[in-house]
């Protein structure tokens, strides 16, 4: 039997960097983008040599803004993937798209290339909030994008949202949720804003937390999200992800459950046969690589770490717990040959006592309160 593999393909370009974003992405000249895609296409061919025994079960074109690419570039990348990897027939193939960069022509190229899921970055349905985030589009432009995506025939669409934004109120957040659910997407990601160091938001708000919704408002928005989406037929299957039944994102679920994945492109992370590594993060250096076998082995992969058994257990717990169904004690024992209780007995007892987790044979999962402070709970699973 072939082993399942997920592919993540990074497109580090944006029309404009958003003020809260700390991902590896930014603006670049068209010539740079072209050079990059050429390199990426070479990398796909070159890396694929290592994975003859695998079937690709999901592909995720993320960014940056992959929808910034020209139709032909999208097609070239996808064709290259199909040429060099064995893509499962029912593979989930997602591309991220941002309003203002999506044309019908591109969407047709996506379809032709085998992309079957579009994830649209909206963040908010309030134009003032969008502007403050440094987004390049209005809500109206998003609506056009969404319609176009549907017209092009995509039946699996995600919309990304963010709460706890500067200037956001419970009412405006509710309006965003209302507007979005009316569109009936299959999937909604709803994150709380986190002020990351090194972003304009950090400079703007780190010393002025009073400009952000206070803790009470933030919590209310958060509780509203769950309740509102639930009443509209979305089920929360991960801390920040909601889906109509059967539309849970398989690619992301793979991250939480230890599926192997290969990252392609600038700074992309991989998890292969117990090794975690990450691609070159410097755009210039990446573009200068000659994507031949030696270069890939010697220069492309950085921060190569072989997980110990202990680390695998830690990850099994703190990643698996992100899913609402939790982690399975049976699966733990099957994988590691020891019982979960033997390794984490004390931690589990303490967390159970504090009602941060719930035991639901054979699963152990976060409680509602545990989800609120998941960072605290998950850190307990580090050995």
């Amino acid at each position, binding site marked *: 039997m072939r082993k399942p593999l997920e592919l*993540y393909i990074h497109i580090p370009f944006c029309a404009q960097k958003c003020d809260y974003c700390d991902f590896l992405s930014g603006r670049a000249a068209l010539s740079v983008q072209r050079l990059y895609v050429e390199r990426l296409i070479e990398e796909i061919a070159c890396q694929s040599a290592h994975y003859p025994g695998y079937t690709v079960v999901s592909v995720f074109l993320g960014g940056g803004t992959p929808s910034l690419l020209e139709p032909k570039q999208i097609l070239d990348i996808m064709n290259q993937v199909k040429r060099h990897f064995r893509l499962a027939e029912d593979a989930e193939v997602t591309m991220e798209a941002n309003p203002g960069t999506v044309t019908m022509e591109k969407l047709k190229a996506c379809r032709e290339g085998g992309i079957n899921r579009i994830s649209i970055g909206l963040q908010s349905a309030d134009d003032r909030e969008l502007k403050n985030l440094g987004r390049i589009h209005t809500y109206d432009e998003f609506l056009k994008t969404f319609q176009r995506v549907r017209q092009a025939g995509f039946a699996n669409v995600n919309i990304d949202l963010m709460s706890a934004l500067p200037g956001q109120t419970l009412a405006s957040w509710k309006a965003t949720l209302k507007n979005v659910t009316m569109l009936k997407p299959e999937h909604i990601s709803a994150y709380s804003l*986190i002020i990351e160091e090194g972003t304009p938001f950090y400079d703007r708000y780190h010393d002025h937390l009073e400009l952000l919704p206070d803790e009470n408002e933030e919590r209310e928005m958060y509780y509203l999200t769950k309740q509102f989406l639930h009443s509209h037929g979305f089920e929360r299957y991960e801390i920040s992800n909601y889906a109509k039944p059967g539309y849970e994102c398989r690619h992301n679920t793979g991250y939480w459950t230890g599926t192997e994945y290969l990252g392609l492109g600038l700074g992309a992370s991989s998890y292969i046969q117990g090794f975690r590594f990450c691609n070159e993060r410097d755009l210039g250096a990446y573009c200068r690589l000659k994507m031949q076998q030696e270069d890939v082995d010697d220069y492309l992969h950085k921060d190569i770490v072989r997980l110990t058994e202990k680390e695998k257990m830690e990850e099994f717990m703190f990643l698996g717990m992100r899913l609402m169904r939790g982690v399975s004690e049976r699966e733990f024992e099957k994988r590691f040959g020891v019982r979960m209780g033997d390794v984490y007995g004390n931690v589990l007892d303490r967390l159970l006592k504090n009602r941060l987790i719930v035991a639901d044979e054979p699963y152990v999962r976060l409680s509602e309160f545990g989800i609120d*402070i998941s960072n605290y709970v*998950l850190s307990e699973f580090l050995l």
Partner: protein
Amino acid sequence: MPIVDQNKIRNFCIIAHIDHGKSTLADRIIEMTGLLTSREMQSQVLDNMDLERERGITIKAQAVRTVYKAADGEEYIFNLIDTPGHVDFNYEVSRSLAACDGAVLVVDAAQGIEAQTLANVYLALDHDLDVFPVLNKIDLPSAEPDRVAAEIEDVIGLEAHDAPRISAKTGINIEQVLQAIVEKIPAPKGDPAAPLRALIFDSLYDSYKGVIIFCRIKEGTVKKGTAIRMMATGAEEEVVEVGYFGAGQFIPCEELSAGMVGYITASIKNVKDTAVGDTITDKNNPCREPLPGYKKVTSMVYCGLYPADGAKYNDLRDALEKLQLNDASLFFEPETSIALGFGFRCGFLGLLHLEIIQERLEREYNLDLVTTAPGVVYRVHKKQGDVIELTNPSNLPNPSEIEYMEEPIVTAEIMVTTEFVGAIMTLCQERRGVYLGMEYIETTRALLKYELPLNEIIYDFFDALKSRSRGYASFDYEIKGYQQSELVKLDILINREEVDALSFIVHASSAYERGRKMCEKLKDEIPRHLFEIPIQAAVGGKIIARKTVKAMRKDVLAKCYGGDISRKKKLLEKQKEGKKRMRQVGNVEIPQKAFMSVLKLDEE
């Protein structure tokens, strides 16, 4: 016959206010007297501890012997004895001065006389030293040598019109200083044939030679084989080696005789046996009485030092023992805290001394420390009549057993430009100061005299002084004695449990204010828990202030993007690492730095 002609010896020190150029002048003197080549010259030879160099002050007294060929063609031996430059080390300063016959007073030609200038001159005059002034930094555009010379004559009464005007930094007129040392500093006296009488002004522990005693021979002669006795400590040993101080090295010689400065080794294992100020005599031919001025050094400031990692307790003890080998003024004894576990109560000469020791423990011995708030030694008079010297607030007896309490008081001299007199007087009043008087040094500068409780100046008085005078005020103090005072113990309760390591003694009038600030500070330091945590300040069981750390409601990681698990894990690790640096008190985890937060209550 002595091997060295007494008339050709000059024993002297350089005294100055901090930053007026003492160490630089010492370097130039050593350089010009040619014992070292320029290449060997490390800048500031006398300051050979890293810490001292960073702080720009000299901590431990040291000495150097150089040879100067004077204008008369004769060679003179200069023994330059370095003195510490901080009030914490006043006693060491006085012993170093006692080893000299004269002093070079360095005054910054731009800044003029400062508080320490005066304090040091008076100290030198008290020791009957001949003092002559030198005006330094004349290369600065702001230098006003005429004005400063007049100031020296008016304020101190030293002849200054012919004072050498130098720049130690650029080397201008250093020759004049050397010549003045020969002419103005008297040669030592003392009978080499009399019974041995030598003053210990410093000592150093060396793992090969044992304790190396730095001494000035006042009378008599000492050489290898002499059976010596320290008159105060009673320690006795046979001399193994005597010698003098080359720059940075010990140079053995035949004998040391009256008037000379040098070192003695005698297989002594502990610097406690060679107390600074003690008199060395010949066991078999003792002098009649010791030299005057010996004082047992007592610690003025105490605090608890605990290893952050309880398993490092023995390492901490070993490190303290090693430091004590070289520093008899460092005191420590084991103590136990409910909050912090096993550690040591340590006594220091002052806050600077504390900081130096703390830094050395952390830097040289790689120890991560938790320090409790420093305090002074209080005298607790109990109703039954006995008196306790209280160094740890936790040991304060029940208030019903206490008749009254006393705290140490200092007399302080603060030199400040007149525009800041008001601000400094306000500061002193806030610190419970008693005004003693004010003198005008010149029309723009005044010398304020105050009595202040030591516990009001050990934390941050110096910083406050500097900030309220835009850096212009200078400060010197000496311990005056004990005085009855209305003192109370302020306790801190976290989640209704008293945390012993956070208790401190405070004057009743400032208990409320301090308690409130303390609660506020701790509220910011203690992370949120799963439950609400009350933080309370109490005096005698009565709550006087309260703050609350709200329960944790949200703690979520950012979006995990493109499978970047490592980053996520790092964040979790950071969180877990944070927990490790906490101390568990009851159900509450308190960050280690919270225990020092009492120190920083006056920050805006």
